[in-house]
């Protein structure tokens, strides 16, 4: 038996690597997560109202979904102003997340932190492109300022509480948010234009994504939709049922479980048999957006120009296109949300009067659909917790993409590092 390990993989929070095992027959490719922070165990025994701050370690969006779950535990309806602040924060998180991913993509073949003088810079990379990259991160910094205003802290927000948010915005912040929204809007137009002018260029790969089901939350009625690769609905259900519809499987070679749809059953990730698997995220949302009866969003025109227009056979490029499409969509929404009339109101939060034994919430996060379910005892101490995060749901897809890249690489033995680079870029938009 011979093993080849491709590690570390860039841009993946947490420890991920690809192991290729050559035994008799075809090589076996595994996408391994080599670490586990035991987040469920960490939450057991904690007071339930502390979970939004603890779970933000998974991603800032988990702070939001955890607070939504608390709304359900405490049976409380957030005030309209708080809802707007939450939504504004959520959109900001989308912007930060998606812009970072684009930055990673554009710098994937160079060292973004090289401080070469201009003449020494990678000549393959025109300097205006380099300038755009730096601009992306400067706008991430701006978006983070917005998320600090809205969420208290940027990477681990603190301000979303059951029934609302923990404070009013201070006076100077309204103008500042407006300013940030305008700046981000003009920048999004710039990115959009650059991308539709085929600025993606050589960074993209036309690796076709296997015909795998997708799961997303309908923006119209909040139902969860399971769609096949053609966009046809296989199943729709209320979000509350998600932990009944979805099960988890633990394979012996990785610390991260795989989630799968119970009805279709589980089989280990295999590009020739994708039946049990599904994925979530921008591309999944885009698939559902295109197939829904409502008119196609204007932002989708961007998608059609970068990568495949054929939604039925999406490529890695389409997944990046979905990121850009969502980026532009988010910017138009923050222009409406970052406004004084949306972010002011008589009350920031409703105080809960009762406590139920359990609570549930799901939402679309930048990474994809996420859901929490808590069971608490009479004093509000967490007794049982279920968390559905995007990484677990995309675990199977990522594994299959790695398999496919390895399978299609003729240079694997000669130049594993080139294969690693291709895997990294193919995994990046998920």
């Amino acid at each position, binding site marked *: 038996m011979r093993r080849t390990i491709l590690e570390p993989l860039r841009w993946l929070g947490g420890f991920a690597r690809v192991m290729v095992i050559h035994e008799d027959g075809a090589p076996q490719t595994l996408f391994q997560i080599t670490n586990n*922070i035991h987040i469920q165990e960490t939450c057991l025994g904690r007071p339930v109202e502390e979970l939004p701050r603890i779970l933000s370690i998974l991603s800032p969006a988990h702070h939001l979904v955890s607070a939504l779950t608390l709304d359900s535990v405490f049976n409380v309806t957030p005030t309209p102003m708080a809802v707007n602040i939450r939504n504004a924060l959520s959109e900001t998180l989308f912007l930060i997340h998606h812009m970072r991913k684009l930055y990673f993509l554009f710098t994937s073949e160079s060292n973004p932190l090289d401080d070469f003088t201009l003449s020494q810079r990678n000549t393959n990379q025109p300097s205006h492109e380099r300038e755009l990259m730096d601009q992306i991160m400067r706008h991430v910094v701006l978006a983070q300022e917005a998320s600090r205003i809205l969420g208290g802290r940027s990477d681990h927000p603190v301000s979303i509480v059951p029934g609302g948010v923990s404070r009013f915005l201070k006076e100077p912040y309204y103008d500042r948010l407006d300013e940030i929204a305008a700046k981000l809007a003009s920048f999004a137009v710039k990115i959009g234009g650059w991308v539709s002018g085929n600025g993606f260029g050589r960074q993209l790969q036309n690796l076709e994504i296997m015909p795998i089901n997708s799961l997303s939350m309908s923006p119209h009625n909040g139902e969860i939709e399971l769609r096949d690769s053609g966009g046809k609905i296989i199943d729709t259900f209320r979000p509350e049922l998600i932990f009944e519809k979805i099960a988890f499987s633990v394979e012996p070679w990785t610390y991260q479980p795989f989630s799968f749809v119970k009805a279709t059953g589980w089989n280990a990730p295999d590009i020739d048999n994708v039946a049990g698997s599904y994925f979530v995220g921008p591309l999944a949302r885009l698939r559902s957006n295109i197939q829904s009866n409502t008119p196609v969003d204007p932002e989708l025109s961007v998608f059609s120009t970068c990568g495949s227009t054929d939604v039925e056979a999406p490529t890695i490029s389409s997944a990046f296109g979905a990121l850009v499409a969502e980026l532009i969509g988010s910017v138009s929404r923050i222009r409406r949300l970052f406004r004084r009339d949306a972010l002011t109101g008589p009350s920031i939060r409703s105080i809960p009067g009762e406590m139920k034994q359990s609570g549930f919430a799901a939402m679309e996060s930048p990474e994809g659909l996420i859901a929490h379910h808590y069971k608490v005892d009479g004093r509000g101490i967490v007794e049982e917790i279920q968390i559905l995060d995007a990484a677990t749901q995309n675990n199977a897809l990522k594994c299959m993409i790695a398999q496919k890249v390895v399978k299609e690489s003729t240079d694997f033995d000669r130049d594993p590092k080139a294969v690693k680079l291709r895997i990294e870029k193919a995994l990046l938009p998920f």
Partner: protein
Amino acid sequence: MPKKKLAIYTATGCPACENTLLDINYDMVSLTSNTDIVFWPYLQGSEWETLDEYGPVDLCILAGAVRTEADRNAVIRLRSSSRLMLAIGSCACFGGLPALCDLSAGMSDSRPGDTDSGNKYLLPKMEPTVCAPCQIVNIDYFTPGCPPTRDLLWSAIQSLLSLGANTPKIAFAASRLPQAIADSVTAGILPRPGSIFAGEKAVCATCSRTKEEKKFDAFFRTHQIDPASGRCLLEQGILCQGLATREGCGGICTAAGAPCRGCFGRTEKVFDPGAKMVSAVSSTFNSTDPKELKNVADSFVDLAGTFYRYTLATQCALMAPNSEDSNNAPDNS
């Protein structure tokens, strides 16, 4: 003057610390103007061999706690190839949030990592408990916070990298640092080993809320009341750990209406954050009647998970396995 060499690594944690580093590169003065980042797996995909190739680096910025055998080996390897080591974030400084799972250990059946099947697949073994890098190797400096605030982190990195060379940068960095550290770096020498790049007093010193009299009759959980703005949260009956926690954050959580949970760790004068909080909170009880006192005390939940939220592995005297002989947990030097 040759550029300094920098390595950046995260053991077990989340990407927030590394993202903060990336952000300050754009938000403030570029990290790389006098530095080459030679090892950064998250952004550059650097392999371990790179470290050997470049020889010892001048500064290693380490985030994350030690959860697996691989983390342990990584920390040891980084130590042996770095002149200075700066732990950033609560995980690397104190063990952080991931260590909390040791508190409820045994509540669920088994840990996924405990299986033996990892052999064929080379999965790194789980350590029996989560610990901080400073419990394994010697760490020179600390910048706590979850994640660390940009100003402090930037100042820490600049003062360690530009020492004795770039006077304007040092002066700027020093203006944001605690006096003792600022004095060292402006004089051109390294701060005392074990120094913490954060404030010296408690969070209360920088918290914008006014404190009057710390007596309250009832304790509330954060979802139960909407605390008045501008008034000390503890006085309003909400557990806030500001008085046991090192300042440096500028009171950002309390300013946002959320109580402090101690991500900067304890102050120098505090022996154990839990003991300090027990003492401080108890002193606010009005009653002298044992029955009443017991009732008030019973209304508190999960003291350990709250008081040691970020520090269980190192600063909780009853949990830190080697509290007496650890290499140099912050404050013990």
